[in-house]
């Protein structure tokens, strides 16, 4: 029995050839078994299974999925139609896991949606896809058509009486569209400003109807939880958090990439074993554990497990689980500047700490990076971080934006001070020498525009 229980449910169907995204291959390997099983279960049974599995959202916030779903009104007099939306807008800096899942296993996402439809009585699903994910768009479009041809979508699916169809919506590129209420506004043809909550989308979302928004990876977990049961899912995790997670590493490691590993895998294993450790000539100075809007951690944190609560206790967040590595030869001020610039640009403009605070932080960081900073600038940056703290803004963009900044000021403060004291970027000069020994062109700080002025 144990042999048939997978330890890597999300990626077990992935092969290097073209077959893994076709419906035949997916079904031959056991795809759509979870959905078929769900047709034999009641909505209550499905919801209980989901709650029991302890699945937490994989889009960054880690909210328990079963609990979220339980807020959707059910029963005959519940508002309809009810909508399911896959959040496939992946724009968090340093995050590249959802693209892989969509390109390699589009049917896994569709199966997750079908289980959602059966659980919540939803009749329409949307995949809200990032506009620049052209290959994912192509494969999802094909997979949806394959499902319509096989009566896995449409009316009376597999004779079960379930009616459900999925539309692919490609976005036009704005990070804030990933925030679930902004996403809903975007789909309604409005500017993508977030909405006030309550009402929560589960009760009144798209077009005022009950709506569930979940991340790609979250939906991908559903078929396996239904197929193999909640206990199996919980046992996959090494600590309290259930299941596996697609972890990733980018930066100057030997083998940047993505791996499906148990929840709770120590960070050191991910970076040293799977990503092959740092490249020759580089040492690890710090890392963002879960994408660009998480706080820096440093070498002393390498032995902690990657799960939601442990990382939070260390003052950061698991976020999307994709680690970005800062090496000793890249300027930490430049790294934070790159991120703040992104967040300032992507602010939707609704509230002041974000709309005005982030550009101001960018100006201060540019000053420091250019060797024109003053000691007072560091205090001002700290103040801006406090202004953008949770509770002071309308959504989580601004609090996330200042996480790398506030933690860089904590861990790499000497580097900020060195810029100010030496009136130049101490990293800059070394990098100006050109090509490094690995043959990769060296970086001259960050922020493309500054060189336009030269």
């Amino acid at each position, binding site marked *: 029995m144990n042999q048939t229980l997978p330890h890597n449910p999300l990626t077990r169907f992935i092969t290097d050839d073209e077959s893994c995204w076709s419906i035949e291959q997916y079904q031959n390997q056991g795809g759509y078994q979870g959905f078929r099983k769900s047709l034999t279960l009641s909505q209550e049974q499905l919801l209980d299974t989901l709650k029991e599995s302890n699945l937490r959202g994989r889009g960054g916030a880690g909210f328990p999925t079963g609990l979220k779903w339980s807020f959707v009104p059910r029963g005959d007099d519940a508002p309809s139609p009810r909508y399911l939306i896959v959040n496939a807008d992946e724009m968090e800096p340093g995050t590249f896991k959802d693209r892989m899942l969509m390109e390699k296993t589009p049917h896994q996402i569709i199966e997750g949606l079908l289980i959602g439809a059966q659980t919540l009585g939803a009749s329409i699903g949307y995949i809200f896809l990032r506009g620049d994910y052209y290959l994912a768009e192509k494969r999802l479009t094909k997979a949806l058509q394959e499902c319509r041809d096989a009566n896995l979508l449409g009316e009376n699916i597999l004779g079960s009486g379930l009616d459900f169809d999925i539309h692919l919506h490609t976005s*036009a590129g704005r990070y804030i569209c990933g925030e679930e209420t902004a996403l809903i506004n975007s789909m309604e*043809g409005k*500017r993508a400003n977030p909405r006030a909550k309550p009402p929560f989308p589960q009760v009144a979302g798209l077009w005022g109807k009950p709506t569930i928004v979940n991340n790609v990876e979250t939906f991908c977990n559903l078929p396996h939880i239904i197929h193999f049961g909640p206990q199996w899912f919980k046992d996959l995790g090494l600590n309290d958090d259930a299941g596996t997670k697609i972890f990733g590493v980018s930066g100057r490691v030997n083998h940047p990439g993505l791996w499906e590993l148990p929840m709770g895998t120590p960070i050191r294993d991910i970076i040293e074993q799977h990503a092959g450790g740092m490249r020759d000539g580089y040492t690890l100075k710090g890392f963002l554990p879960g994408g660009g809007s998480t706080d820096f951690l440093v070498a002393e944190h390498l032995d902690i497990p990657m799960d939601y609560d442990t990382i939070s206790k260390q003052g950061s967040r698991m976020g999307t689980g994709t680690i970005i590595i800062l090496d000793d030869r890249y300027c930490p001020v430049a790294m934070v500047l790159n991120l703040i610039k992104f967040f300032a640009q992507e602010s939707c403009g609704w509230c002041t700490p974000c709309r005005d605070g982030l550009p101001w932080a960018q100006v201060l960081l540019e000053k420091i990076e250019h060797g024109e900073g003053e000691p007072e600038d560091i205090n001002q940056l700290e103040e801006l971080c406090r202004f953008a703290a949770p509770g002071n803004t309308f959504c989580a963009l601004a609090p996330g934006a200042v996480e790398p900044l506030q933690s860089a000021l904590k861990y790499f403060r000497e580097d900020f001070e060195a810029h100010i004291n030496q009136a130049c970027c101490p990293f800059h000069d070394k990098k100006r020498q050109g090509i490094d020994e690995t043959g990769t062109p060296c970086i001259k700080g960050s922020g493309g525009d500054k060189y336009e002025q030269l």
Partner: protein
Amino acid sequence: MATKEQQTIPVSVIETPDISLSSKEQQGIDELISHSPQLAGITIDALKLIQAERGWVSDASLHALSLYTQIPVADLDSVATFYNLIFRQPVGKVVLHPCDGISCDLMGGEHIRQCLKQQLNITAGETTPDNRFTLIPLPCLGACDKAPVMIANKQLFENVTTDELPKLLSTFNEVS
């Protein structure tokens, strides 16, 4: 305050036949409307459809779209100006999107963008005088393990090096 004459100007513009929607565009829009629970839901898709046909979304195109769909111009423009991938200015035949996300910059992405600017002699947001290339850096393109990366002509180029850029640009010259 706009005078009455001023208010009528856009009307005469939108009645100019050469900017009204082609029958192909109209068909596409009709199809979008048939799928959307409410009219406004088509906005992004409709703008993308116009852009696919015309290369970019001009004021005149916005008016034409508004006239056809009855969605107010201001609503259309508030959406059009919100997104990175809806172009409200003309772009060249090939739009180059080098990534300026952090993982790419950690791996030399800045050098790639700098090199592109030098080769094409334009800065970010500009189009070459021969209308071949527009340079629009985009944030993290979701391929950070292959950094630095670039999207051009809807295709993702991974592990881009400055050495191969001239050759890459010349292949676009051939197709365009």
